[in-house]
């Protein structure tokens, strides 16, 4: 014990290398201070503007809005992932017509703004209310939430199909051939050998897609859906208090950051056998 103490006492540590005040260091300190001041100002503003009456009146609305945002994103992600399967398979198909059809679908939805898609479905189809009533679909298209859901599902299906197709393509051909050599059927080989490897490749893009959807979902506020953004807009229109938006921004940041970290954890967990 004393041996260790003695040894550490006699060790002469070399002096720390000099840390000159380089331009980078000055710029770094300066920008960190600026962020610190901005952060402190932000907190100070939110604290001084804190009004228990307003919070009691409008606070629950944010919770409702958050629930709408999350349910909208979750349901369209699930619907989109189901829809993306045939599209991805079409994209990989050897039939040129089918492949072109799938590519066209993906290009159409990835090449245009989500907002334009939502408007086309909500306002555009609203023009055909008579015809839709005749076939009994008006009940669905009358509701802004449903239109947002439909647009998001179609949109994310295109993105997810591209992710899935790319991931399946990234699995080396030898895996297919190996499975065939073992006498496995094509579908069995796909399910048990190709898909698990492809999904690991697709993990990160899928996580990005979820985050993009959460952020993109804010635009349904424009077609009068009261999601988190919609509630913030409503509260701002009533109070003209800027903290209406700031609180929503804080909530969005928390959700996105939490999701990003959870996803990183899931990815690290699922790929731990690949670490060397």
């Amino acid at each position: 014990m004393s041996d260790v103490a003695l040894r550490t006492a006699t060790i002469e540590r070399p002096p720390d290398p000099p840390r000159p005040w380089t331009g980078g260091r000055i710029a770094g300190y300066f920008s960190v201070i600026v962020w610190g001041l901005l952060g402190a100002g932000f907190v100070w503003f939110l604290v001084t503007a804190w009004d228990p009456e307003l919070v009691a009146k409008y606070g629950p609305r944010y919770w409702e809005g958050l629930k709408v945002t999350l349910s909208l994103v979750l349901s369209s992600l699930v619907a989109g992932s189901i829809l993306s399967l045939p599209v991805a398979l079409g994209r990989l198909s050897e039939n040129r017509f089918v492949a072109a059809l799938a590519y066209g679908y993906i290009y159409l939805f990835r090449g245009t703004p989500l907002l334009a898609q939502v408007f086309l479905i909500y306002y555009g189809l609203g023009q055909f209310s008579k015809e839709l009533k005749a076939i009994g679909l008006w009940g669905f298209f009358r509701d802004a939430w449903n239109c947002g859901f439909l647009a998001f599902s179609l949109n994310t299906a295109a993105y997810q199909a591209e992710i899935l197709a790319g991931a399946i393509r990234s699995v080396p051909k030898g895996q297919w051939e190996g499975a065939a050599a073992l006498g496995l059927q094509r579908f069995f080989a796909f399910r048990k050998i190709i898909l698990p490897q492809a999904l690991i490749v697709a993990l990160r893009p899928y996580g990005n897609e979820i985050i993009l959807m959460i952020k993109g979902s804010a635009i349904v506020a424009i077609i009068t859906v009261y999601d988190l953004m919609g509630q913030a807009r409503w509260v701002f229109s009533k109070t003209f208090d800027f903290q209406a938006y700031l609180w929503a921004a804080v909530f969005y940041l928390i959700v996105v950051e939490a999701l990003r970290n959870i996803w990183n954890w899931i990815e690290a967990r699922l790929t731990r056998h690949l670490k060397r």
Partner: protein
Amino acid sequence: MDSVLELLSFGPDGWGDEIASGVFVTVTLALATLPFGLALGFFVALAKQSEEPSLRLAANIYTTIFRGLPELMTLFLIYFGAQIGLRQFLLFIGVETAIEINSFLAGMLALGVVFSSYASEVFLSAFRAIPKGQYEGGFAVGLTWGQTMRKVVLPQLIRLALPGLSNLWLVLLKDTALVSTIALSDILRQTGIAARVTKQAFFFYGTAFLLYLVLAIISGIVISRIERYGNRGLAGR
């Protein structure tokens, strides 16, 4: 078919000229944002790969915030926030005026910071793909840091970053649709007005949809040209 041509004709009866001006605004906004976002993204990437921890921290805070916020929220925060902030500041120094922030400028700023925070990641991974020997070689032949950056690293960096940046350009082009919500007369706002006046919502929003598609196709053609130009040194290798 006649009525369609009439709706899209130029002149007082048709909406062709209004929509054309919308296309002009959309394209101008995207083109004006691009250099601003690229330059900012490049410097943020430089900060992120700096040896100075404080610089890395500041850059990471920047990208965490602007990649985490919805683009629409960033736009509203800048548009309304700048308006309120400026008014407070002017009140503070004793001037009382109603100010309106230019929505083009607000849109450019918001789209630019979002673009730059994504672009910084693209630049960063491109930086990491360039071997250290390239810098060392530059220093060994007596180039300064700036010259090494400009003449050795940057030409390779652009080629490596191009695929990621062209994706971001397409995202930027689509994100410009959001400025229609802060009263900037882009494609979507102009077609929206036309849809409300003529009650032909499907037709006009369909037109907007197709116009964005055409812009994406044109961008794709230009991008593949630039990529071919960027890769010209690699031909046959």
